[in-house]
């Protein structure tokens, strides 16, 4: 164990007020991987994402990014270090146009530009002057991913990107996510749709009631019927 993980969370415990949500959650993401964080609704997927992004920081435990502790750092600092966050409820800046949504993002360098985002999501180009609040769910999802890309992330926290989207759009989105991987971006993907996740991920964690219940490669999960039955909706 001398190689340093891109992201490593060690025994994080997160609370909402008094209620204890995450229990000793540990996970890691290696460079170039897509790691799935699978679990049912309310299992703690989003909370894990928010804990890593510093939006709802863990009360105990530590998080490392490229070997350095990022525990307790504020979201904007983490973004500037190269961690992009795509929340499950999308949260585009509704009053701004598509283009402005991309433009106001803090950019570390010029690796990702609006043009490059439009290359991955061509649909956005035609609606770039439209108010983001008026977009369809799929378009908003592309925009939130594109927005995160503008900061040139090395790690992308993708929280249920396919939730509530039509199957044909889900399919397109899956291809786009694989393109991001090809572009060298590592991804932590929270998902409850097992079929969709299995097309994308290299390794998986299964979370239930705020605790990690299973950790393994994609193959190991595919072969483990018991785990799938117990923790996932199939």
């Amino acid at each position, binding site marked *: 164990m001398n190689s340093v993980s891109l992201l490593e969370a060690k025994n994080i415990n997160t609370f909402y007020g008094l209620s204890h949500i995450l229990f000793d959650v540990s996970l890691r993401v290696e460079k170039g991987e897509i790691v799935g964080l699978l679990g049912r609704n309310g299992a703690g997927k989003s909370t894990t994402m928010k804990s890593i992004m510093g939006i709802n920081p863990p009360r105990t435990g530590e998080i490392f990014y490229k070997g350095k502790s990022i525990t307790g750092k504020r979201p904007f600092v983490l973004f500037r270090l190269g961690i992009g966050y795509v929340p499950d409820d999308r949260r585009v800046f509704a009053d701004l146009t598509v283009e402005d949504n991309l433009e106001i*993002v*803090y950019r570390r360098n010029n690796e990702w530009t609006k043009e490059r985002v439009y290359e991955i999501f061509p649909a956005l180009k035609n609606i770039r002057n439209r108010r983001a609040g008026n977009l369809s769910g799929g378009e908003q999802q592309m925009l939130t991913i594109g927005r995160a890309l503008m900061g040139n992330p090395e790690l992308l926290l993708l929280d249920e990107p396919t939730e509530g989207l039509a199957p044909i759009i889900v399919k397109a989105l899956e291809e786009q996510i694989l393109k991001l991987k090809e572009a060298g971006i590592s991804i932590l993907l929270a998902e409850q749709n097992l079929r969709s996740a299995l097309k994308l991920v290299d390794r998986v964690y299964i979370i239930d009631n705020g605790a990690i219940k299973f950790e393994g490669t994609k193959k190991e999960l595919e072969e483990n019927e018991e785990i799938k039955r117990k923790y996932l909706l199939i």
Partner: protein
Amino acid sequence: MDIYTILSQVLVGLSRTVILFIVSSGLSLILGVLRIPNVAHGSLYMLGAYTAYTISKFFGGQDLGFWVALIGAPLFVALVSFIAERCVFQFLYEREHLMLLLLTFGFSLIFGDLVKMVWGGEYKTVPVPKVFQGYILLFRHLHLPLYNAFLLIIGPLVAFLLWLFVNKTKMGKISRAAAVDREMVGAVGINVSWVFGMTFVAGCFLAGLGGMLVAPTISVTLGMDHSLIMESFLIVIIGGLGNIWGALIGALIFGLTQSIGILIWPKFGIILPYAAVVMVLTFKPKGLLKSTW
């Protein structure tokens, strides 16, 4: 009562609108983006007027003093607000509104006393600069004081600059996004604390500018903050919280009903703006334009 009397009163109302708009738009900006109901906004307006007095006096009442004050007074107010924001307010954004209301009310009392300590209790006057003494004659019968004409130019200019800031600058776009979802703005790498700080300072600059501009038209005195903060809040509420164009419409309603009210019903005209507020809120409880809340 002829048409010219009414028109001239309308122009007086519009000049008043300019002052009300400048101050209220600042209040609305702060309310919309930072969610702070800044009761001390009126005090900053007063501070702008007193600072204008001091600068004007320093230049011996020369025209130059007016122009220096036009820039210097709002800048001084902005500086004061910057210090207050960095030292106190930035730590309190997450508090509930009642707390912020009490805190800013406390600030307004402190500012009131500080102004009294520095400038004393007497009335102060700021001379109208010589270039703006006199009248323009409109339609042969209508006398428009030059200073009012100046205000009528400044008002749209400030509105235009504000429009540019909010819609065309990155800072303005960020502040619009932060008004709705500050957490997500942070999650795309923007230091929200600085955006809030700068927005606060910009809003307070407008309070100072309003105070500076009003100074030559009134007696600068303690308590001028109280009536104005009341009016400003009402303007922002009927316009739609946080909506700058709402502040413009609210200021127009206030300025015009005030001036026309005095004309048609001298004894009770003063209640007309408040009657208008009641009317608006009866039919549009959330204000005339879309609120950012």
